[in-house]
């Protein structure tokens, strides 16, 4: 995937990042090394990478919170570094999944404060704060101090605060970090709703691949500051699908260590895992015959097979393949 043409940029590009570099003074390697990508209006781009890949630095450079060594970031045609006020007016951000709120203040006071410094007119601010509390199902907790909120409620309120000035672009850095399954699911639904119904352009960084797989339209994978892959989610998964399918062999009980060792000597890339409490052996190959040989070997070694499923690789598996390849 390449950056859209200038003609397209005028109409459909919300954020354009060009040749962005960041070299911290004491660091031996650049935190971000010459990356370029774009976020289309109303789409979600998932920025993925292992720890230390440069994701947070990239997000902060887009938000103007870190100055790049070189490169440019344009937000709806305004340069973040030379036209900061105009560019930032279009951005809402929830950073690093951390506290973005005043814990001693109530939800309502937080909304009023952050709306005021974003220069939302008072009457409009009150109406909007009420709407957002209702949207995020926090109205009942309007006057409750934020320190009494659960982590999920705090994260919902942080997202609400970032939406007060109705920004076109939303930057979410690890929005589900530390959340339980239910709260993470709610955040996932909110992100999907904001992109599809409210036409927000969202940049999402996460380590939870299923979240990216659910909500993202485009995927940008980086490792050690460098771009590994940048393409649409569909084409990425399709590309890996064509490279090979995965067979999941579900067993009735765990195989013996010796059996597993024998299996691994014949099929080194076999993966053993528990899927929903079911012992599963997964094997990936582009060769149908090789897959059948794998299943036969499992059977011959005396493992009791309950079920066999063929599937395409998940984003997590694609991500691991991509980042492992890069590391080697």
């Amino acid at each position, binding site marked *: 995937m390449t950056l859209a043409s200038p003609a397209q940029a005028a109409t459909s590009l919300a954020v354009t990042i060009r040749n962005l570099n*960041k070299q*911290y*003074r004491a660091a031996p390697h650049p*935190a971000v090394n010459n990356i370029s990508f774009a976020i289309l209006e109303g789409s979600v781009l998932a920025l993925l990478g292992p720890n230390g890949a440069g994701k947070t*630095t990239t997000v*902060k450079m887009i*938000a*103007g*919170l*870190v*100055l790049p060594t070189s490169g440019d970031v344009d937000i709806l045609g305004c340069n973040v570094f030379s036209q*900061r*006020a*105009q560019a*930032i*007016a279009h*951005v*809402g*951000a929830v*950073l*690093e999944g*951390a*506290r*973005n*709120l*005043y*814990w*001693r*203040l109530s939800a309502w*006071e937080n909304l*009023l*404060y*952050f709306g*005021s*410094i*974003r*220069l939302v007119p*008072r009457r409009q601010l009150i109406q909007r704060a009420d709407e957002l509390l209702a949207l995020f199902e926090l109205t009942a907790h309007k006057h409750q*101090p934020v320190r009494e909120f659960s982590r999920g409620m705090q994260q919902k309120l942080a997202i609400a*605060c970032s939406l007060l000035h109705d920004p076109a672009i939303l930057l979410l850095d690890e929005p589900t970090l530390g959340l339980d399954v239910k709260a993470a699911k709610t955040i996932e639904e909110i992100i999907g709703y904001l992109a599809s119904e409210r036409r927000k352009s969202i940049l999402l960084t996460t380590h939870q691949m299923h979240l990216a797989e659910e909500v993202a339209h485009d995927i940008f994978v980086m490792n050690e500051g460098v771009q590994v892959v940048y393409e649409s989610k569909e084409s990425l998964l399709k590309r890996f699908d064509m490279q090979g399918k995965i067979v999941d062999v579900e067993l009735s009980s765990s195989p013996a260590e010796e059996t597993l060792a024998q299996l691994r000597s014949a099929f080194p890339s076999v993966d053993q895992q528990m899927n929903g409490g079911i012992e599963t052996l997964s094997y990936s190959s582009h060769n149908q015959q090789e897959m059948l040989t794998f299943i036969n070997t499992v059977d011959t070694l005396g493992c009791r097979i309950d079920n066999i499923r063929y599937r395409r690789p998940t984003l997590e598996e694609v991500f691991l393949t991509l980042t492992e390849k890069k590391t080697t």
Partner: protein
Amino acid sequence: MKWVQILVAEARRELHRSVAYRLEFVADQVLFILGFLLLSGLFYILSDGGYTEKQQLMSLVGFITWRVADGVILRSVSTIDEETQWGTLEQIWLAPIPPRLVFFCRSTIILVSYMLRAIFIAAILLLSLRLTIHFSISMFAVFLLAQFGVIGTAYILMGLQLAFKRTVSLTLAFTTSLLFVTGALAPIEHVYWLTIAVRFLPLGPGIHLLQAEIEQPLSMIHLWLSNEGIWLVCHSIVYLVLGQIVFAWGERYALNSGHLGQY
């Protein structure tokens, strides 16, 4: 009128903060009232009863002026430290206004808040020590002008806080030393070099002029035409400008090194 909106937002935030930390708020006032009474008693004993009513008044005016300055500088710097720890500092940089404007509004609200507290403390101390003060408009003007220089000083220290982090202890040492070296509590005439240095220190010319007003009240015209009056205006302007320069440097340093939100 965006600054009015930010002033109101900062006032609400400061009010809610004071309510949330009400015990700290009350303890703070009690500490300063007791502190001054204790020092006053000490001076009385050390001077063998020669600590006159006028000297007590001069110490009180110096102490109250210092107390407001101490509050403005310390709170302005610690607010950046707190916000870094709370994870809210970067949200200020995500507003479509210069962060300096937010911090100027914040320091102004802190100044008003500490002036109200100072009125309360002064009233209690005046009653306790049975002192009377003839407060004039020119004294208020001097007081305000001195505090604008203090806001400039707060900006310098906020800039250092952005760049180097954890400067609250340094700020505390700095503001505490101001109480003694500016002659706020006790005269410094016997240390010649200090009388020269104090003219350049934050708050120094302001306290000197306020204490001189107690000895010999001046009209507004006489005040602003005097060398001390002109020096105070220049002194406050220089500190305000210097504050802006250091803050801008600290901001750029933090943005370049990527540690704005770190502590």
